[in-house]
């Protein structure tokens, strides 16, 4: 692996940047591994990296049915925050935010983590009360979050319309300054490159078609489109397709998969300094370093694996954006797309063991998995290496839907789901 540095950049510039080697090899599957990760998105690649780096298990394969980072990792709106209401969630998401810090250096790959702040708008009295409750709960958990008046919000984000006769009046906002964005593709590539350097095989175009179990019911390997691969430890990190994979092991999961859409505008000069989320009218936006406004819309109302959503969902979001940020009314949108998100009944993820020995799962991140990428990868790796959950992900077990210990972020709704 070529180590990236100012010197390597300069040296390669002398030859016209023609001689960069591939960043990691396109591996072919071996007959068996110590651990297999199903799903080559940020979460799965992160898990492989931490298995090799922190837990010394380097004979690992990541199986991706398409190409690396071509699923939800490359389709999200790249927002990072940890301002969730419940203690369990605050610990889980803040674990990830702490890992985002320094990740570029750790991976020797610029993931462009930008702590530009995530601002959530309050449009009515209920929003004000809910956001202030979140702020207080967050602070008790050591997660930064602060209240802004409409004027302070406007100062932080000048395109914001705070006039009193606005369609969606702004009564205040909650600001998490440590929140922000990162370059989503770089996260996948950075983890893939670093994991491959530690000996992990990254296998693309390799869809899992079956899970083979021994006489005692424990996992002994996976059937794939590229042949059978043996492994007594299989971690599934397949987002919207988790239910499909779990059915192969005879498990029914409390998940439903929905299309979630996002869109970007034509690129413009820097005008939008932070991330703004408006949960009530369901619009959220930031500006990428390329200059595009990156806008997140809502999910469709029906279960689907189509990776495209309905136009009226996008229309609804853009109507809200035009009201809240009138300066963008004449912008043209460049592209829209959809990703399939796996949603749990309580809108909290499932991360831990399953009833099948040797089968582990990381799923249910719903509409907000990107922010958790390093944390989810680390915790899945820990759970697979020790065969028991870390205390941070222990509450996010599958049993909670049976024993009733839900972590109901759906009701707490940091975002309208």
């Amino acid at each position: 692996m070529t180590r990236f540095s100012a010197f390597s950049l300069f040296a390669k510039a002398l030859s016209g940047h023609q001689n960069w080697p591939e960043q990691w090899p396109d591996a072919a599957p071996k007959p068996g591994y110590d651990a297999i990760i199903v799903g080559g998105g940020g979460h799965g690649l992160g898990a492989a990296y931490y298995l090799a780096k922190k837990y010394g298990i380097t004979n690992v394969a990541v199986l991706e049915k398409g190409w690396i980072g071509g699923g939800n990792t490359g389709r999200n709106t790249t927002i990072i925050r940890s301002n969730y209401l419940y203690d369990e969630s605050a610990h889980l998401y803040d674990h990830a935010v702490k890992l985002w810090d320094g990740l570029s250096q750790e991976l020797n790959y610029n993931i462009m983590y930008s702590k530009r702040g995530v601002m959530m708008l309050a449009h009515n009295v209920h929003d004000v009360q809910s956001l202030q409750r979140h702020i207080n709960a967050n602070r008790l958990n050591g997660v930064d979050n602060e209240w802004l008046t409409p004027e302070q919000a406007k100062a932080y984000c000048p395109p914001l319309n705070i006039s009193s006769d606005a369609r969606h009046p702004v009564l205040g906002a909650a600001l998490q300054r440590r929140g922000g964005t990162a370059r989503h593709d770089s996260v996948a590539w950075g983890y893939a490159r670093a994991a491959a350097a530690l000996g992990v095989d990254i296998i693309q175009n390799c869809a899992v078609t079956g899970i083979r179990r021994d006489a005692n019911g424990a996992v002994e390997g996976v059937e794939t489109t590229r042949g059978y691969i043996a492994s007594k430890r299989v971690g599934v990190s397949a987002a919207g397709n988790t239910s499909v994979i779990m059915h192969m092991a005879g498990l029914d999961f409390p998940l439903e998969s929905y299309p979630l859409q996002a869109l970007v505008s034509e690129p413009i000069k820097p005008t939008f300094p932070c991330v703004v989320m408006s949960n009530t009218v369901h619009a959220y936006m930031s500006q990428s370093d390329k200059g595009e406004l990156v806008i997140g819309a809502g999910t469709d109302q029906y279960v689907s694996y189509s990776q495209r959503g309905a136009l009226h969902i996008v229309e609804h979001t853009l109507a809200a954006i035009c009201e809240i940020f009138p300066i963008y009314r004449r912008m043209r949108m460049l592209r829209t797309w959809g990703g399939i998100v796996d949603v749990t009944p309580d809108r909290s993820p499932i991360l831990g063991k399953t009833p099948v020995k040797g089968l582990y799962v990381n799923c249910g991140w719903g509409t907000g998995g990107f922010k958790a990428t390093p944390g989810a990868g680390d915790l899945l790796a820990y759970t697979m290496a020790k065969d028991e959950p870390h205390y941070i992900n222990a509450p996010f077990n599958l049993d909670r839907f049976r024993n009733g210990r839900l972590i109901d972020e759906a009701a707490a709704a940091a975002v309208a789901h």
Partner: protein
Amino acid sequence: MILIHCPYCDEKRPEIEFANAGQAHIARPLDPSGQSDADWEAYLFIRANPRGRHHERWRHIHGCGRFFNAVRDTVTDKFETTYKAGEPRR
């Protein structure tokens, strides 16, 4: 936007007239106190979430207001059929 056939109105209408009401043919337990935790989990939370043929409920909320069932392919989003509530699973 998809077009949905309402079996009561007998018309194909745009999706925005309808509300999706989740997986179909999930029967509420007749003896709630006799249910185990696992039964409740299955009834409340476990969903088929298939990649392919899906039985689901819709409500023609901005039309006749009635619930009906549908079979739709979740990969293509194409409706195979819609039928009135109470009719057997297709």
